[in-house]
């Protein structure tokens, strides 16, 4: 018999239906993945299960009993815990105080520290995390460790169902591995896990079964062995995968050189970087984190001070700074979209026109009509989903925020785009639109420096690939003849004695 049964669940917010009669079942002890694009209804479903929202209609059974939490406390009482992306921990208190908050063992009002320590230790040990001592202050822990504490807290509460909402979004690889080990241990203890994630690789690694939602409807629930990566993505976006990467503009080795970088160095992070970028080309920069690829993007835009090197744009020297770059029709899409790419508190319209306010003003006075017109064009061109251009950007979903950031770049009519991790943390549908955007721009003769950690994206979009390792370019590869494995090998620094490295000064 199934552990969790959801039957015909519906939920409507002001005229828009977020869940449309969703039904599926989750087996006891399974790690059950829940996937779907942003807006598919995942978060609404989670909110209902954790008691933060109430469904309009439909029924839920847990362990054969009806389960309809009215508030988060009901959920906790029914042994359902939710582990959010942002932790609800008290940073200044110790692990044991955090884990036992509200139910501290005491004798006549005096905390029983001994028991607290034992209880905490017992749970941490069960999660194979006995390196975390009950007395440690939570604020000093790493993100991954904090997550373990959240899980341990849930375990201490005898949770039968744990809902994990994008648990790996802030973790590095080691921490992800540790989390997966923890999940395996939870599974041994018979805990059922509802796992929400954008990262399909992870799902294949840990899930037993998988449910796909799209536009508030239930698409499929299948055991993991019946699902392939392609079928999953097709379920999510509702179209055939063959069209994920749009056809790229033909490569033209004779095209005009729009940017040339010679012997660029930045402190200890970049060493004698040299390359060129041609008109209509997508030049990808690949590398592991810490390879210097992010720093390269920042340095070209003036966000890091150059210690040496020469940059020319269309033959004219260029000293990087954001306003000079924009003046020279070079624009950068920052890596941290939320913090750097858009200004959350400003309306969409103003975000889009922020870099070109000069063009829409006369003698310092803004022409708001022109601003609306310009923003409207961009919103339409990039299909930004918003009821109104006066909305603050903070009200938009991640994917739409990224589109606003792109629209802002596009508004300056750049010849060169530096796109830093343009699809990071964005759901599949918008990813596709961004790929299409890149292809369109290059077809129109613009050039893109694509700095990305996603190899499929690099292979699917670029003409050439620069591979970075420890602050140097270790290989320049032709995308049409290279493979993921080859790029990875260079990125790992395994094979330095290669012939087709352009700037092979490393060996001198």
């Amino acid at each position: 018999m199934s552990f969790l049964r959801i039957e015909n669940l519906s939920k409507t917010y002001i005229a828009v239906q977020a869940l449309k009669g969703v039904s599926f079942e989750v087996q006891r002890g399974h790690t059950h993945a829940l996937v779907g694009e942003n807006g598919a209804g995942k978060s609404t479903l989670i909110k209902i299960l954790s008691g933060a929202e109430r469904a309009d209609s439909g029924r839920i059974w847990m362990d054969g009993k009806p389960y309809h939490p009215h508030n988060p406390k009901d959920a906790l009482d029914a042994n359902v815990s939710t582990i959010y992306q942002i932790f609800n921990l008290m940073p200044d208190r110790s692990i044991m105080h955090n884990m036992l908050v509200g139910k501290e063992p005491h004798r006549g009002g005096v905390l029983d520290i001994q028991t607290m320590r034992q209880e905490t230790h017992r749970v941490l040990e069960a999660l194979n995390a006995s390196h975390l001592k009950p007395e440690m202050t939570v604020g000093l822990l790493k993100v991954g460790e904090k997550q373990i504490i959240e899980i341990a807290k849930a375990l201490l509460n005898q949770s039968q169902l744990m809902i994990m909402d994008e648990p790996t979004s802030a973790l590095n690889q080691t921490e992800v591995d540790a989390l997966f080990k923890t999940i395996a241990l939870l599974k041994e203890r018979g805990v059922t896990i509802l796992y929400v994630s954008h990262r399909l690789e992870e799902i294949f690694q840990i899930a037993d079964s998988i449910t796909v939602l799209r536009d508030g409807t239930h698409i499929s629930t299948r055991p993991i062995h019946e699902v392939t990566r392609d079928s999953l993505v097709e379920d999510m976006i509702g179209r055939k995968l063959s069209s994920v990467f749009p056809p790229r503009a033909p490569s033209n080795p004779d095209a005009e050189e729009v940017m040339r970088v010679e012997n660029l160095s930045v402190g200890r992070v970049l060493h004698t970087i040299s390359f060129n970028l041609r008109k209509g080309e997508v030049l990808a920069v690949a590398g592991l984190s810490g390879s210097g690829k992010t720093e390269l993007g920042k340095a070209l835009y003036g966000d890091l001070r150059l210690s040496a090197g020469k940059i020319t744009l269309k033959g004219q020297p260029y000293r990087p700074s954001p306003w000079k770059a924009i003046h020279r029709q070079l624009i950068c899409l920052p890596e941290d979209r939320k913090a750097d790419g858009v200004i959350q508190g400003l309306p969409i319209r103003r975000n889009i026109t922020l870099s070109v306010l000069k063009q829409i003003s006369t003698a310092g006075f803004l022409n708001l009509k022109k601003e609306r017109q310009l923003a409207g064009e961009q919103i339409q061109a990039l299909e930004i989903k918003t009821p109104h251009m006066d909305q603050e950007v903070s009200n938009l979903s991640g994917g739409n925020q990224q589109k606003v950031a792109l629209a802002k770049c596009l508004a300056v009519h750049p010849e060169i785009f530096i796109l830093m991790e343009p699809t990071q943390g964005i759901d599949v549908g918008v990813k596709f639109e961004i790929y299409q955007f890149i292809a369109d721009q290059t077809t129109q003769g613009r050039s893109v420096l694509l700095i990305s950690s996603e190899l499929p994206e690099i292979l699917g979009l670029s003409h050439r690939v620069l591979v970075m390792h420890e602050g140097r370019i270790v290989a320049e590869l032709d995308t049409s003849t290279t493979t993921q494995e080859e790029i990875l090998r260079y990125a790992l620094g395994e094979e330095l004695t290669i012939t087709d490295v352009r700037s092979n000064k490393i060996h001198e």
Partner: protein
Amino acid sequence: MSILALDNRQDLQRRVINIVGEQGFIVIFALWALYLTLNTDNFATTNNAFTVLRQAAVIGIVAIGAHFIILLGDIDLSSAATLTLCGVIMAKLMVQEDYAPLLAGIVTIGVGVLIGLINGLIITGMKINSIITTLGTSSVLGGLALRQTSGKTIAGDQIDAIEFLSRERLLNNNIPLPVIIMFVLYLAAFIILRRTRFGAHVFAVGNNARAAWLSGINTNLVKVMAYMLAGGLSAFGGIMQVARQGTATGTMGGDFLFPILTAVVLGGASLSGGRGKVFNTLIAAIFLTTITNGMVLLGYDINTQRIVSGGILIVALSLDRVRTLLL
């Protein structure tokens, strides 16, 4: 389409909370005004209304500059000291150096702008926190003002030449000139903030200076210009105050800093920058004046006045906390 659903709902919730945070003090103001109208004979008279507005003028004008600085996420603690020093300079130039009023006024405002420039350059160039910088300049300026006056009151018939700034009534001899000046400056500030590139840059920098910089905005220049504007307005406030009291002393602005900053914060401008309506600052400045005005009309003794005005302020200011807590 659930994105939109969530957006709408959250948006509605946010909007309500924002309105309470930004405009809630107006409700308190209205209640207070209603109470005064019912309980005093003279609150709701034109005469008293103009008295209140005239009293609000100097603080209101200087608060415009403070509003710009708070929009940038900074705080200018030197506005009152700038007002004092510039008032003293204005009076001295006219009384002791026999400058023509216009020339003295231009020099005085120039000094104010220069003070703003120095503040701005220290804050942007040396990357020193605005509170610390302006606390420092405030103490220097206060010391200079005292030194300039050696503790004496500067007065003289020459000052009569600018008394029209405080006493003149325009529009059929009805509306006091300082009130008109205040409203005109607020209108100008509103236009600058909402309709000019500089204003757009102020909001952008205040919201997220780094993102603004990455968008090609010269954030340092924006800050320096805002400080210069604030300095110039403080200087003008100093001139208005000299015109109002007919004298200048080395401590004349000493009690102004608190109401200036309170007006901006009470008006709902967020201390972390990027959010605030300049007309709300005006209304708040007027509100602050009616608190003391009303208390005198009610005939409360001075100590009760302090307790009640403190209470009203706490209630009005706590509305802003509601916003920060819920958002």
